[in-house]
């Protein structure tokens, strides 16, 4: 048995021994996700137990170093961990913007103190983070952000407004882009961390067309942020932000990856439909989806060995999100009038329609499709003036 296979056997039996029954059912909706944090209300005992037992082994962030709360797994081992989780039908023990976004940025740009403190908190699910990037006038054109941090010696006083702050009303801390130099557009932004309970921070949920409110408007009114809570250099927060955005796009684009084996055309037979035209659309979609899954797999393989074009995540994000929107348009068509129901029991409170509407944000958040295409045109195709 190879070393990796031995590792796989070990992981498999550990999951078998430790994953509670409740955590072996598929995630139905956002309410089933374990986000962690100071105020998190666990859905059941199993959810809490699973997070804690994993955190104790470093399995919530398997490929982070042990010193920062991880299990120090190699990429190959981490893949085994994910595969075995999937095989057991086990849910991820902990999901958070800390894991996906801030963590990687801290690993690259943080000081040793920051890494030890914040990464361990993230790994144990103690602190839930939110992201303070967009502003009302600065969406795609993020760098035009206006939230200002005035230098007061050992601290900044931050004033301004963010928008699209995911779960800001539930988060404990925020990682936030703040202008610290008004004279320099790109090199005048700093990447600050602060507690959401700091006086002067208020949030207001935004109601979406799906009926959910996962995002907030977040207001800063003379918020005091100590100087040591900056990540990276002063006025060089844009570098951190870009790295983090790239990582986010990579993650989003990788989400469609892996070996996808199921096609959606089967909804026809599942729904007892005899619709040759929809069947044709579904087959066309399945071709595109299976092909994209292969592309996602190839992309992840290439990333591992540093062969992917650095701007490739932009293409993957574009293609993957457009595909997902199309998937839900087709699912709505296959669902017919039942899928239109907004509050019925049969649809679990309108799940098909709400999911469909939710996907419309895929090609807006984390960089619009238009921005992705701009980046591909410029950085990959090297078209003039792009």
């Amino acid at each position, binding site marked *: 048995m190879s070393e990796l296979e031995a590792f796989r056997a070990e992981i498999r039996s550990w999951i078998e021994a430790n994953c509670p029954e409740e955590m072996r059912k598929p995630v139905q909706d956002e309410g089933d996700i374990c986000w962690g944090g100071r105020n998190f209300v666990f859905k059941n005992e199993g959810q809490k137990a699973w997070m804690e037992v994993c955190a104790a082994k470093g399995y919530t962030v398997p490929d982070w170093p042990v010193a920062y709360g991880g299990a120090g797994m190699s990429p190959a081992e981490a893949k085994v961990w994910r595969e075995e989780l999937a095989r057991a039908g086990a849910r991820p023990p902990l999901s958070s913007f800390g894991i996906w976004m801030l963590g990687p940025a801290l690993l690259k740009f943080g000081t040793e103190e920051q890494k030890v403190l914040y990464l361990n908190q993230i790994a144990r699910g103690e602190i839930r983070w939110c992201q303070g990037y967009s502003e009302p006038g600065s969406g795609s054109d993020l760098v035009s952000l206006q939230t200002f941090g005035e230098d007061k010696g050992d601290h900044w006083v931050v004033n301004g407004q963010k928008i699209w702050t995911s779960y800001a009303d539930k988060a404990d801390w925020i990682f936030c882009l703040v202008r610290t130099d008004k004279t320099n557009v790109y090199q005048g932004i700093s990447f600050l961390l602060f507690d959401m309970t700091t006086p002067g921070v208020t949030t207001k949920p935004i109601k979406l067309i799906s009926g959910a409110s996962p995002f907030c408007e977040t207001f800063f009114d003379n918020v005091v942020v100590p100087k040591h809570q900056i990540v990276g250099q002063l006025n060089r927060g844009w570098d951190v932000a870009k790295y983090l955005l790239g990582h986010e796009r990579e993650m989003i684009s990788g989400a469609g990856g892996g070996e996808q084996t199921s096609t959606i055309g089967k909804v026809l037979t599942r729904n007892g439909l005899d619709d040759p035209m*929809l069947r044709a659309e579904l087959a066309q979609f399945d071709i595109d989806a299976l092909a994209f899954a292969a592309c996602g797999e190839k992309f992840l393989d290439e990333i591992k060995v540093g062969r992917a074009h650095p701007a490739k995540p932009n293409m993957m994000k574009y293609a993957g999100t457009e595909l997902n929107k199309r998937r839900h348009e087709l699912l709505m068509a296959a669902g017919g*009038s039942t899928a*239109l129901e907004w509050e019925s029991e049969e649809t679990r409170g309108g799940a098909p329609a709400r999911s469909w509407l939710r996907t419309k944000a895929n090609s807006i958040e984390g960089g619009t499709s238009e921005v992705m295409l701009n980046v591909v045109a410029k950085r990959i195709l090297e078209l003039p003036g792009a």
Partner: protein
Amino acid sequence: MPLYHTEDQAMLAESVTGFMADEGGIKKQLRHWRDTNCKDGFGHGLWKQFAEMGLTGMLAAEADGGLAMGHVEAGIVLAEIGRNLTPSPFLTTSVMGVTALKDASDELRGRWLPGIIAGETVLAMAIDEGAKHKPEKIACRAERAGNGFRLTGAKDFVIHGTSADAIIVAARTSGSDSDADGVTLFAVPKDAAGIGHNAVRLVDSSIASHVRFDGVELDGSAVIGEVDGGRAVLNKVLSAGRIGAAAEQTGVGAGAFAMTTGYLKTRKQFGKLIGEFQALQHRAAHLYSELEIAEAVVIKAQQLLDGGSERAELMVSVAKAKAARACNLAVREGVQMHGGVGMTDEYDIGLYMKRERALTEFMGDANYHAERVAQLSGY
């Protein structure tokens, strides 16, 4: 006949446009009834105003107190309903219901038309069985019982089912489920014993009902047209509903498009109005083209239907499919071009997307009608 409005139609359009914008606007109607969780999903006051405007009975014969107008005129009203997302029972009552009643006895017409014309009566159509439109197959049964019928079965996606004073039901009186013959239409009063409703709010905030008929006793006077010969009436009702929904959908598309081009002219990013970006300009121009084409084919189909052309059936399906595709593009582009704010409930563009989805499904989606186009064309 030229494919633009006559003078009379243009006058109608002008008055309806103003009326609907003033009285049927999104804030005043759709949002109001949605946010107060209205069980009907529309306002009866506005329905009265429709009557005062002479709209409720526009398709009814003059002898019945109507205006004897056609689908072109009904389409003018529906386009404005679409543009303003105005919730109202106009399509089911004044378009589909009145079309059905044209083939009904004096007694039935006398019973229902005056209330419709007065804006006091609402009709619902019980046609679909199951989640997808497939009226070729009708399983709901009405069996002979004494002098009348006993109705048993279930119908889905019955818009305004719970608020309707009568439900017009397509039921099978003979033959097997997929037979063309053996269908009969009934006007079933809301208070008939044995009707059960499971009302559900839909994505567009309209209310649809899953209706069960549990041995509902009907006397012979409830029959519209001939017993077993209802397919002909049903086909007229379907054509009326389909071209009506298509007309409404062109209004939805036009409303979403106007909102979107408006946004392109005001939102700035990267120091420019986003409408200055050529990629968005080209997509907007393409969308304009699609909407113009959809609008044209809807008028064409309305005229053919009003003229009794044998091509009407084909062109109604072409129009319903084309309007669905064009309007779907309009709302998708609308939300995307609005960016983040397009995802918020505060902006109206998302409401257009929701309405588009429901209208597309109503009386057959683009794929259903593509199949019909192929079959009617002999391939």
